């Protein structure tokens, strides 16, 4: 396994700027998620690292060696594609053996390696079948097998679970996590699913519109997002944003709602954007009253939509509390759970994970 | 060797072959057409004469005769095969085994050598003993001299050419019809349109680009017709059924008027390429017009 460095990478497609100056350092044995909405540049980053695309500027280093000018065939990276990209005219066995056959490995080594990969991924019964006879989940395992069978410097995965149904996706998520941990593998994992990124990664790189917004461990991203975009992207149900004004008494006023913040890093009267996570909204306490307009019961929890004057709030509630539409609930949020963002730049001014002494106004 | 080098090496042999066996002779032909060379008079090429050969060709009565026949054959055969081919595509539409078998059997005229087609039809249309006239005679109908009468022979050749290539039109139009989105047709039915209306207002416009492409291939190929003339009439009676291709063949490879034939062949080349270009432009215009609606 190896460390990976992307240094000052940019990518232009004609006049379109797909990636703005990107600096990313992945440590040996680290599992990094590249997270972001469609078109944000995460797949482009992966392709550049793989060698399938060339960067407009910048260098790529694998284990300290500059591979920028080396074609994909020589970089010794294993890639799992979103569509699995199995060779339809080869059996599963030959699919997995292919990377070794290309390298002209000795026959015995190939047979052993294929057997090991098949055992690890539980696909021994399918070895002599063709990809078209397999289900999505089985094909995905074969794609993984083909990546595992050699000893790559790192694994690159491009939304490998997005074509699976929800149940299978959860199952595979856990399996993949365990697998890569056991292997001690360096991996870059592209996804638009924040739950996947949160649960699987050592660190997450959040992308938007060609820029990397933040590169940090999952909880840091959750509790100390670099800006409003990152905060909006991570967390389900997503964060609510309200336009607010800071007041003299250390509170933040958003319409009828007044929240006291732990620390206000701005002058009174300054407009801010208030961020609240639904799970931080509690139905007790001395906050303002809001009317329940929608209750969605998920079985394990409820998501309640409330209206307070013009503002809409979302709140999560445990499954066995009865909440009726039209009822009035007093909501409140603990001061330390408030997020504050600059209305113009979106930069985070205050967040639960940010040390108040370190934010400036 | 890098990927790029490998790919260039893959491209090279084919391009090289074309350069040597097609483009170089093409350039040579042009060069020869600008000089004076008749094999009867000298085994090597003579002096530069510029466009003299071209002028002679254009003033040659046989050339204008061949030109007018070639144009009428090309136009007639194209229109005939388009109509018949499209009609057959419509008639044999469907997955029923009888239609599928019919489509297969109907493609046979196109797979045999044009020279053989000429031979076969020469036999069929022989004035006295050919089966066609035998049948007409049995029915008490007149038995025309299909290949012996100048005007009739021109018509006959046009029909023979159409006979051979109608299957080509049928096959392509069958595929085009099969690829029409069925929801559009169903929507039209729901809107109350009858079969004829659907055909005229929906199907035809949608397959028009393909139809034009097929028409282009047919027209250009028909302009080059040569093989069929060889084995049916040999250009006769007189010179009535000489196509441009056949006339050039005779001039160049029988009488060895090398530079004369070269000039005429370049005129034919220009005619063919202009026709192809014209169709492509027309088709593009139609597609843009349809897309913009």
């Amino acid at each position: 396994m190896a460390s990976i460095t992307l240094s000052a990478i940019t990518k232009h497609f004609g006049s379109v700027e797909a990636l703005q100056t990107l600096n990313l350092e992945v440590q040996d044995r680290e599992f990094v998620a590249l997270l972001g909405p469609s078109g944000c540049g995460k797949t482009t980053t992966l392709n550049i690292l793989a060698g399938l695309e060339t960067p407009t500027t910048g260098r790529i280093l694998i284990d300290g060696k500059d591979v920028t000018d080396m074609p994909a065939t020589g970089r010794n990276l294993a890639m799992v594609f979103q569509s699995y990209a199995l060779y339809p005219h080869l059996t599963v066995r030959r699919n997995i053996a292919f990377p070794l056959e290309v390298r002209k490995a000795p026959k015995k080594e190939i047979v052993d390696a294929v057997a090991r990969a098949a055992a690890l991924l539980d696909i021994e019964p399918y070895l002599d079948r063709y990809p078209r006879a397999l289900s999505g989940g089985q094909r995905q395992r074969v794609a993984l097998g083909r990546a595992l069978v050699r000893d790559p410097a790192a694994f690159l995965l491009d939304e490998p679970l997005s074509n699976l149904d929800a149940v299978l996706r959860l199952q595979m998520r856990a399996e993949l996590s365990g697998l890569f941990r056991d292997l001690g593998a360096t991996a870059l994992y592209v996804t638009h699913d924040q739950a996947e990124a949160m649960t699987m990664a050592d660190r997450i790189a959040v992308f938007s519109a060609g820029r990397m917004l933040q590169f940090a461990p999952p909880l840091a991203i959750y509790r100390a997002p670099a800006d409003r975009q990152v905060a909006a992207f991570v967390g389900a149900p997503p964060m609510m944003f309200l336009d607010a004004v800071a007041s003299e008494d250390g509170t933040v006023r958003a319409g009828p709602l007044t929240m006291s913040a732990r620390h206000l890093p701005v002058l009174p009267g300054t407009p801010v954007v208030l961020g609240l996570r639904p799970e931080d909204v509690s139905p007790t306490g001395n906050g303002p009253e809001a009317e329940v307009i929608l209750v969605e019961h998920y079985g394990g929890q409820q998501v309640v939509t409330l209206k307070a004057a013009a503002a809409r709030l979302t709140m999560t509630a445990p499954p066995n509390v009865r909440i009726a539409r039209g009822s009035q609930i007093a909501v409140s949020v603990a001061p330390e759970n408030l997020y504050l963002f600059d209305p113009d730049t979106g930069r985070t001014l205050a967040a639960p994970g940010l040390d108040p002494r370190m934010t400036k106004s | 060797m890098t990927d790029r080098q490998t790919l260039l090496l893959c491209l090279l042999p084919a391009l090289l072959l074309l350069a040597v066996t097609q483009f170089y002779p093409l350039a040579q032909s042009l060069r020869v057409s600008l000089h004076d060379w008749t094999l009867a008079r000298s085994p090597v090429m003579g002096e530069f004469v510029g466009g003299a050969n071209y002028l002679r060709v254009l003033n040659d009565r046989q050339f204008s005769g061949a030109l007018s026949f070639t144009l009428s054959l090309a136009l007639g055969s194209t229109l005939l095969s388009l109509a018949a081919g499209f009609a057959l595509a419509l008639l044999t539409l469907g997955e029923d085994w009888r239609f599928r078998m019919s489509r297969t059997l109907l493609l046979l005229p196109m797979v045999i050598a044009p020279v053989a087609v000429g031979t076969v039809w020469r036999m069929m249309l022989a004035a006295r003993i050919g089966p066609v006239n035998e049948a007409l005679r049995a029915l008490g109908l007149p038995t025309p001299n299909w290949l012996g009468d100048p005007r009739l022979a021109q018509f006959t050749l046009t029909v023979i050419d159409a006979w051979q290539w109608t299957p080509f039109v049928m096959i392509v139009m069958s595929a085009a019809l099969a690829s029409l989105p069925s929801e559009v047709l169903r929507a039209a039915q729901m809107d109350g349109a009858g079969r004829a209306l659907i055909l005229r207002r929906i199907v035809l416009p949608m397959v028009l680009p393909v139809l034009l492409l097929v028409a282009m291939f047919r027209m250009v190929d028909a302009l080059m017709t040569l093989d069929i003339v060889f084995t049916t009439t040999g250009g006769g009676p007189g010179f009535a059924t000489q196509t441009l291709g056949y006339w050039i063949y005779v001039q160049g490879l029988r009488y060895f008027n090398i530079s004369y034939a070269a000039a005429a062949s370049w005129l034919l080349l220009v005619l063919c390429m202009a026709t192809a270009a014209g169709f492509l432009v027309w088709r593009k215009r139609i597609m843009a017009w349809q897309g913009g609606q």
Partner: protein
Amino acid sequence: MIRGALVTLALAVSLGPFVVLVVNSVRPSDAFLASGAGFIPSEITFDHYRAVFGGDGDTLRFLWNSVVVTAATTVLALLLGAPAAYALARLKLPFRLSIVFALAFLIVRFYPKITIALPYYLIMRDLGWLDTHLAVILAHVSITVPFVVWLMLGFLEELPREIEQSAMMDGCGAWGRFVWVVLPLSAPALGAAAVLTAFTSWNEFLMASTVATNSAKTLPVRISAFITDKGILWGNMAAMGSVIVVPVALFALATQRYLVRGLTAGAVKG
């Protein structure tokens, strides 16, 4: 129903001549001239076939020439055309250059071969290759390669890129990807290209008659010269015609799927 009647009529018109040809090939000579003789001959003879194959008929040699030329043309056209198409599909060239290359292949289809026939003859004469199989084969390959390229190009553009990218990641160079991944997956397109090339070469007349002046003649050249000065030997002509037509027709029926695929590939795309 009218539809059935019309289709039957079309079948009769299309297939009638074939039937007549075969029937005439076994009809005794005297049965031709007697008009009023029935359609079905009262007795059949193989004299015409014997005449055509034996003696100075020499048909067997020309049949062999056709077989050699067609087989070699098909193999060579695929050998040159498929890699060229792969290169055109995957090579990143400046826009102008890629148009030039594509045009170079396309343009061959649209000019009359009579224009190059005589110069080609002279080139072959100067090389001393007149009347050889090679001369005919080279001419045929140059005519059919553009079509192979066009057919394969359309097909290659539909192949999912990710499979080749996968092979790239697995360490496979361009030639390896072509041989181990692209070619196996292109089998149907290759089949169509092979069938169409074979037909084109087997039926080609102009170039073959230009450079094959004597012993290298192919069947189409042979049949074109069938009018002897003794007058028209209808029976022999019919036998000769059957030799050309019947095997080709049977082959077409057997490979019709590939034939249709090849013909419709380019036309119906956009």
